[in-house]
């Protein structure tokens, strides 16, 4: 499905440009888009190296394990396919916690580690497993307690109360997280019924 979106954006873009006369902008957009992506990836290097390093300390000292044990009751319900003692669980829970605390750049490397472990658990298939889809649902909904970026922007534009949207944001992100989990479960059970698993 994602390759369809990709093809659609490019083809629709180029065809539209034929009619809007924006070929020059499109040519430029190809290269600025590519450049932005590489700059983004290079920015990620520092973040990845740092947080993966910290993660490894937590893993060696056993902190990751105690943390996983603490959250086990919820984790087992959310990810029934993952054995509670599997390393994937530790990464999954760290990813979710980092998101909740608003540490978006720590969440990414932990999430990638989690998906890699889940892939191994799924027999190294190139197909998304049930747990991966649940994890993605949680990440795209991005349960956050303090939306720091937007508070900073509001402050910049002279808001009388930059943080007043914290409550409404928590409500909205809570709704979309619960919705994501329900939709995920619904699709899973529908697929199960149709005998496609």
């Amino acid at each position, binding site marked *: *499905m*994602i390759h369809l*979106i*990709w093809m659609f*954006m490019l083809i629709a*873009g*180029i065809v*539209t440009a034929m009619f809007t006369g*924006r070929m020059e*902008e499109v040519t430029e*957009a190809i290269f600025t*888009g*590519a450049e*932005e*992506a*590489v700059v983004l*990836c290079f920015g*990620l290097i520092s973040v*990845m*190296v*740092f947080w993966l*390093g*910290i993660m490894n*300390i937590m893993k060696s*000292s056993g*902190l990751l394990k105690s943390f996983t044990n603490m959250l086990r009751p919820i984790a087992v319900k959310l990810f029934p396919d993952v054995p509670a003692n599997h390393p994937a669980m530790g990464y999954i829970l760290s990813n979710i916690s980092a998101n909740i605390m608003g*540490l978006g750049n720590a969440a*990414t*490397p932990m999430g*990638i580690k989690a*998906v890699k472990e889940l*892939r191994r658990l799924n027999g190294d298939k*190139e*197909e*998304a497993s049930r747990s991966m*889809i649940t*994890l*993605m*649902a949680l990440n*795209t*909904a*991005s349960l956050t307690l*303090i939306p*720091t*970026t*937007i508070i900073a*922007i509001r402050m910049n*534009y*002279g*808001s009388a*109360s930059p943080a007043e*949207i914290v409550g*409404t944001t928590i409500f*909205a992100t809570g*709704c*979309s997280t619960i*919705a994501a989990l329900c*939709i*995920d479960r619904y699709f*899973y059970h529908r697929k199960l019924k149709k005998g496609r698993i």
Partner: protein
Amino acid sequence: MMNWLETVSLWTIPLLLLIILLHAVVKKVPAYDCFVEGGKDGFQLAVTLIPYLVGMMTAISVFRASGAMDLLLETLKPLLVFLGIPAEIVPLAILRPISGSGALGMASNLIAEYGPDSFIGRLASTMQGSTDTTLYVLTVYFGAAGIRYMGGALKVGLLADLVGIIASIFIVTLVFG
């Protein structure tokens, strides 16, 4: 309230680090060696992402620069306005799951234009803060782990985004409306 929030967000990372390091000391773990060992994968991981993100971000920027994005917005606008979404917020609602930087720019523009404490300003803030860029999350996580078939992940993500948009409008209208 604001000072308290600021302190919390400034203290989170250093405090977290302190706890992790003290725990390592108590457990007699060679923290520095562990850090270096664990960080080794980081470079590889970030570099692996380059082709995925170059592909996706090029497509998004072509789609926007050509005017196709505006065309899509104009087409979808009547439908979304009919569903009760304020016309000013429609571009942000559509851009949010597709492009993180695009949505952030759009939200800043709305906040600048209507003022952070206006209805539109508050709605844009809530919408921007309440969700992550679905397309980016899927590209990065599945790309880095070499997952080619995403199953229902995209559908789930986009439907949840829709719920988030509706929830934002509902709660902002209720609290500030």
